């Protein structure tokens, strides 16, 4: 596994990331590399700092120290405009979906487009792009509904469609299956798989859902006490004898 990694293109890299809130050290020298086209799963207990880590990645939080590079650009050194441009290459699925609740599904999907469509030289009409994105998550009928009229699973799908609409090269999923029933969770997992194969995107998936990890993960990193505790395939980790690792795969 590690041997083949050396030949692959790194699309996102975190090195020595440190982040603390007051005396609460959340991330302590965390390292991670995401290769083009792979699904990398990060697992960790609730409160271990997974959301903090991805928020540092997209510049929503400032790390205390460490380097974050995306497509070979160091995000901490970018000005606001370049950061905004870089962000269009990243789709972010929030833990709670984070749909704009004063806007319809259509307006939610149009929102990322209105600022960046011209610059990215996308020629399709906005309408067409919105329809496409909704179709790819199987929700064409929801176009004119408000987020309050959607179920949790539908919200997750719309949020996913919104994350996909600028055709990003990286998608970050923050707990895509948490809070969903097992069947809907399976559908979302299948969707994530199909996005990887049809768009060729790289994905960073935060989860503590073992089923999700088993299906989607090409590689898994365990985040324990702010560090990447161990790394490997699902096979390797689930057969590990380490007690802390076993606790996740029971």
């Amino acid at each position, binding site marked *: 596994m590690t041997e083949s990694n050396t030949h692959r293109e790194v699309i996102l890299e975190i090195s020595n990331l440190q982040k603390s809130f007051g005396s609460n050290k959340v991330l302590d020298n965390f390292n991670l590399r995401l290769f083009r086209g792979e699904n990398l799963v990060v697992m960790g207990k609730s409160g271990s700092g997974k959301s903090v880590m991805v928020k540092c990645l997209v510049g*929503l939080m400032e790390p205390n120290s460490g380097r974050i590079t995306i497509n070979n650009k160091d995000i901490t050194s970018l000005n606001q405009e370049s950061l905004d441009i870089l962000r*269009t290459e990243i789709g972010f699925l929030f*833990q709670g979906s*984070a*749909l704009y*609740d004063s806007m319809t599904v259509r307006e939610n999907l149009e*929102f*990322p487009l209105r600022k*960046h469509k011209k610059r990215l030289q996308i020629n399709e009409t906005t309408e067409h792009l919105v329809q496409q994105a909704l179709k790819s998550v199987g929700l064409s009928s929801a176009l004119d509904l408000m987020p309050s009229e959607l179920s949790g699973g539908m919200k997750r799908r719309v949020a996913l469609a919104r994350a996909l609409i600028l055709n990003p090269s990286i998608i970050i999923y923050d707990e895509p299956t948490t809070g969903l029933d097992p069947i809907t969770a399976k559908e979302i997992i299948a969707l994530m798989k199909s996005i990887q194969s049809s768009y060729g995107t790289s994905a960073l998936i935060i989860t503590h859902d073992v089923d999700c990890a088993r299906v989607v993960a090409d590689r898994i990193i365990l985040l324990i006490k702010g560090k990447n505790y161990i790394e490997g395939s699902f096979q390797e980790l689930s057969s590990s004898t380490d007690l802390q690792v076993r606790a996740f795969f029971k």
Partner: protein
Amino acid sequence: MASSINIADKTYNALVEIGDMTFFAKRYFKSVGSAPIEWEELWRQCYLVGNRSLLLVAVTGFILGLVFTLQSRPTLSEFGAVSWMPSMVSISIVREIGPVITALVCAGKISSGIGAEIGSMRVTEQIDAMEVSGTNPFKYLVMTRVTATTLMLPLLIIFGDAVALFGSALVEYLKGGVSFVLYFNKVFDAITFNDLLPATIKSFFFGFVIGLIGCYKGYYCEKGTAGVGKASNSAVVYASMILFVVDFIAVFISDIFFEI
């Protein structure tokens, strides 16, 4: 002992809060100055601010004019000065009571609404989502709302003043047989440019305070649904308090320049 520490703490916190608000205001002016401006959203917010408070302002204004005139009547008639009613009522309404009452009503309606709206967007990570999608949430949410309230409050106040004067004229018509034409002729004789100008200038500041405090409280809302309630509630409290401070300063300054 404990209570004096408590007071010191509270004073300290209030000062810190005022400092933060000043920074927030500074950030607002920066974002107004830098292109691009979200015209469409600004226009929509202007419409919402005006439309949502119109009825409320009309009702309070009407009752204000009515009650004010009814209660002043006995005193004025004691001095045989009922004919002074239009000028007395109009000057106090246009200069002071109209702007302050309308602004307070709008603080209750608009500040709390903005505080709750932006607060819940913060709590449910919608503001983060906006930021990640490459839109500056401060510009899209805060700049548009504060500008909208700043522009709309003077209009609402003028409207509120007009309705209040109408209420007052109605009382005079019913109780004193004064015709509307005569009443408003006297009103326009009484009001001068020096009454209108300071009142209008201060209305802009009232609007600014109402929008800014609502946005500030929402933008830095604490996590959880309790945070949203707190944001909305303290937006009203702070906005009302600061409105009075601004009013005091405005009266002080216009006293110098316009010789009340």
